[in-house]
């Protein structure tokens, strides 16, 4: 699946600043001591708007996953499948992401994962997850 080019949107720029530096930056409500996804709006705990940005550990576990298959092209060729996942950060929030470097047959709930960062030639850096080293 061709990723395309990632651009900033002015609302989640600290996430991309972090990714460029190899750091997973998400949101955090200091009043509630509650970590939130990078695209969270108000804190669901206290309703506070504009929660802070904070660096997460990058450690996560697998919640659930799917191997997504592309639509066959007119000539019968099929794009390579990708493994998409819902992961739970050690701090609590869930992120929708792509898994790399995983043995698909060994995937299970709770599998330890860690964030890895990609720095394409064009566009913003981004985050993927891979199984944590045993």
């Amino acid at each position: 699946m061709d990723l395309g080019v990632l651009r900033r949107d002015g609302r989640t720029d600290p996430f991309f600043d972090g990714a460029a530096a190899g750091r997973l930056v998400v949101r955090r409500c200091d009043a509630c001591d509650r970590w939130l996804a990078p695209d969270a709006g108000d804190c669901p705990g206290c309703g506070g708007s504009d929660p802070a940005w904070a660096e997460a550990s990058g450690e996560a576990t697998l919640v659930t996953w799917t191997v997504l298959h592309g639509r066959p092209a007119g000539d019968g060729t099929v794009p390579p499948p990708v493994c998409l996942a819902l992961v739970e950060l050690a701090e609590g929030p869930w992120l929708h992401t792509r898994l790399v470097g995983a043995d698909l047959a060994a995937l299970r709930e709770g599998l330890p994962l860690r964030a890895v960062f990609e720095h394409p030639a064009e566009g913003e850096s981004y985050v993927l997850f891979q199984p944590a080293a045993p």
Partner: protein
Amino acid sequence: MTGPTSGAAIAGLGMTELGKVYGRSPRRLAAEAVRRAVADAGLALGDLDGLLVSHGMSGSPGIELAGTLGLRDLRLLTQMNAFGATAGAMVAYAAMSVISGAASTVACVFADAPLRPKQPAGSAYHRDAREWYGYGGMTAALGFRSVNAFYALAARRHMARYGTTSEQLGAIAVATRQWAARNPLAQMREPITLADHQNSRWVAEPLHLLDCCLVSNGAIAVVVTGADRTRDLAQPPVHLWGWGQGHPGHGRERGSEFGLTTGAAVSGPIAMKMAGVGVGDIDMCQLYDCYTYTVLVSLEDYGFCAKGEGGPFVESGALGPGGALPTNTGGGQLSAYYMWGMTPLSEAVIQARGHGGDRQAPRNDVILVSGNGGVLDHHSTLIVSPHAKGA
């Protein structure tokens, strides 16, 4: 004709041609469905004093539909949207309006025209772009570009937690197609086997192509009026015994029940209590089946089996012709037509009237109808019957 009344019923059902119906806007399709529903009831357009409008992916018919139909002096007119739960929500609102006396005869319509000539059926539900913006754009770029992936995450979570299998999901696809084979309105009537299901291409594992619903153009409308009024009308009334909604608001964080439970666990008991029935009284189900998995998890949440036992339940043959709980007797969204919540509702009306022909289920006294929207985020339930409530 207005004034409070003791109960409400569906008096008319109107369906346009469904499927690859090109060249007509949602508003034109909706207008035809409303005209057909009114004629089906033995009413005239001028008898309507309420209109509720809903839409799918291709733009709303809008409340301007009233003008298109030439309706005047309406007492109720609005657009509603709870995604796939809207049909049930519209009928409930219409019923409450009729019972309270706010309106007397209300049409509820859904229209959509996402299919375009020479475009893949799924394209209306798929995003693609060369550039993506912000964190949400990154998620889409990584592969979350259609709803298929999100439902696949839900189904996989159930499998990992409870041992549900792809073959069990396939049992739903096969049973639903058995019903569709008996429905002249169904788009897919060729019988399928479990092997066909297993051999159909992967869309998003664990979902095969035959786990996924169709995409259809068209419109469906129903007319809701006072139960006491239906005696003089053209069709047997379909009485509205109960309704409910459930919107669990699963969070995206530790402890979330995403994928494992739905709003049916809330809307089902509300609707059944209102109807004065229990789960054992339900003769048949018309369930929202955007994916086979949606049926399985809804059956669990309604209490037809315990949580986690949906797989063995559907594998038992309960859902198909001759089964203990005939479900999606018209072929559902998987095999008949995809008109969001109007698919299960339209088949419930046909079955309650006893107009199911070759697919008429043996008992139709109490029928459960579900709606499901978002990614198992929004749920509606109706309990309908050919009999007046409490009769």
